[in-house]
């Protein structure tokens, strides 16, 4: 008896802590990850919104690339960002794209001393590494660091909790970071996250991850699984790679043009810039939108979307019940002419068409900290 075990499955350094906390596990991107703990997804979601949640995101890639001015120039040929003006310890959201502006991955890039730190999706990190190594002609030292864990702490009480463990983190602004020393370990902390809440991501050496996380738990934060991470990010209107984003979608179609530097669009000369410029000028045929089903019906990924004349106009990419919205929420792609806010649409669930409305994102308003200093 018993389930067949995949012997190649990887575990993060918090695996024992997850087990001790009665996690239900799921295989995600080759890792054994907690989908939820004993209190369940809805309670974990609410605890993050009202208090403070800890997320083990150690499966994500932490890619350090070392270099000076040459590296900045070379990375500007890859990412649609104004990296020359990115200040030390400041972060930007961006994409690794194909020549057709299809998205290989979405990522956070941070300027650190001696180079850049790029946080990559777990399922994409190995491929990203290969692509970047090739695009950079193997000119720079690149480390996809498996020796470091990544722990996110998210929610309104997170700043109080984290500063009681690492003094000074309260002075960080949203999308910026710094090195701190705790118990002789070098820890890199950024004020960021993917829940729509104020919070931090903490990069630290594997051997310290378990002890550090237990300190956060002692201060009142609770472990939160991937299930609540998904409902939180969806309420916050944030994309998930493999759902809203893929090689078949461009940043313009994904309604993420805010993440493309205006200066860089004028000058072009980055991978995918021809298509991006064309789409910004001429528009796109389909675009990502927020969708609010009427009533309680939940429209999941792949649900077909129809207009009032019963013509198919798109497809849902993520849909669930939003605990803070207290109702169903979804995102998807529709033909551009039906993408205006308040447009009436229909979602086909179990053979029946249910009314819904195109709405603005996020479903749940964020509260990022922008002006500490």
């Amino acid at each position, binding site marked *: *008896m*018993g389930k067949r075990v995949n012997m190649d499955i990887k575990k993060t350094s918090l695996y024992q802590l997850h087990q001790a906390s009665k996690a239900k596990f799921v295989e995600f991107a080759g890792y054994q990850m907690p*989908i*939820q703990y004993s209190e*369940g*997804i*809805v*309670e974990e*979601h609410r605890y993050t919104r009202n208090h403070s949640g800890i997320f083990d995101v150690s499966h994500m890639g932490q890619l350090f690339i070392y270099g000076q001015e040459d590296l900045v120039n070379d990375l500007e040929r890859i990412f649609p960002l104004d990296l020359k003006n990115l200040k030390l310890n400041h972060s930007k959201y961006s994409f690794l794209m194909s020549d057709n502006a299809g998205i290989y991955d979405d990522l956070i890039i941070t300027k650190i001393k001696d180079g850049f730190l790029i946080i990559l999706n777990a399922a994409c990190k190995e491929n990203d590494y290969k692509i970047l190594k090739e695009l950079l002609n193997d000119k720079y030292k690149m480390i996809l660091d498996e020796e470091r864990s990544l722990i996110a702490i998210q929610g309104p009480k997170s700043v109080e909790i984290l500063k009681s463990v690492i003094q000074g983190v309260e002075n960080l602004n949203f999308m910026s970071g710094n090195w701190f020393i705790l118990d002789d370990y070098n820890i890199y902390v950024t004020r960021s996250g993917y829940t729509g809440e104020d919070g931090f991501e903490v990069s630290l050496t594997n051997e310290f991850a378990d002890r550090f996380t237990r300190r956060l738990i002692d201060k009142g934060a609770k472990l939160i699984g991937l*299930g609540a991470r*998904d*409902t939180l990010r969806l309420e916050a209107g944030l994309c998930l790679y493999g759902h809203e984003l893929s090689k078949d979608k461009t940043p313009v179609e994904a309604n993420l043009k805010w993440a493309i530097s205006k200066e860089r669009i004028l000058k072009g000369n980055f991978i995918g810039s021809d298509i991006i410029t064309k789409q910004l000028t001429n528009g796109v045929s389909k675009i990502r939108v927020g969708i609010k089903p009427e009533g*309680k*019906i*939940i429209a*999941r990924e792949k649900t077909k979307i129809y207009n009032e004349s019963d013509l198919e106009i798109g497809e849902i990419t993520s849909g*669930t*019940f939003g*605990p803070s919205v207290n109702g*169903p929420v979804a995102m998807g792609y529709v033909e551009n002419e039906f993408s205006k806010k308040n447009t009436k649409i229909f979602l086909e669930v*179990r053979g029946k068409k249910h009314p819904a409305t195109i709405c603005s994102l996020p479903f749940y308003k964020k509260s990022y900290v922008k002006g500490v200093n």
Partner: protein
Amino acid sequence: MSEVKFSKEHEWIKLEGDIATIGITKHATEMLGDIVFAELPEKGSNVEKDGTAGVVESTKAASDVYTPVSGEVVDLNQSIVDDPSKINQDPENSAWFFKLKIKDKSEMDTLMNKDEYDKFAKESSA
């Protein structure tokens, strides 16, 4: 005397006279997690043994609810549609799904008793 039986699809059924009350088991709710949506069959409709007779959804996924016996739907528990979290709180009692006027009592014989179901549930989740 009422008789409670269980199906392999994790429904419970309580028979009183020719009226059967049907719901999902505590074990099922533990596997599903937080239930956030419930859909019931139509009152007055006829459902066939092992056919679909409703849906429950957690934040993660949708699951069909099957009827363990055939019959006519004579009553619905609207309170679980209005507040699906009741199903997690009291699945084998107040959070029943629907009542059937059953067609063939012998269909009850194909189902498991409590001891058999507990053993089945334990094995199927191992």
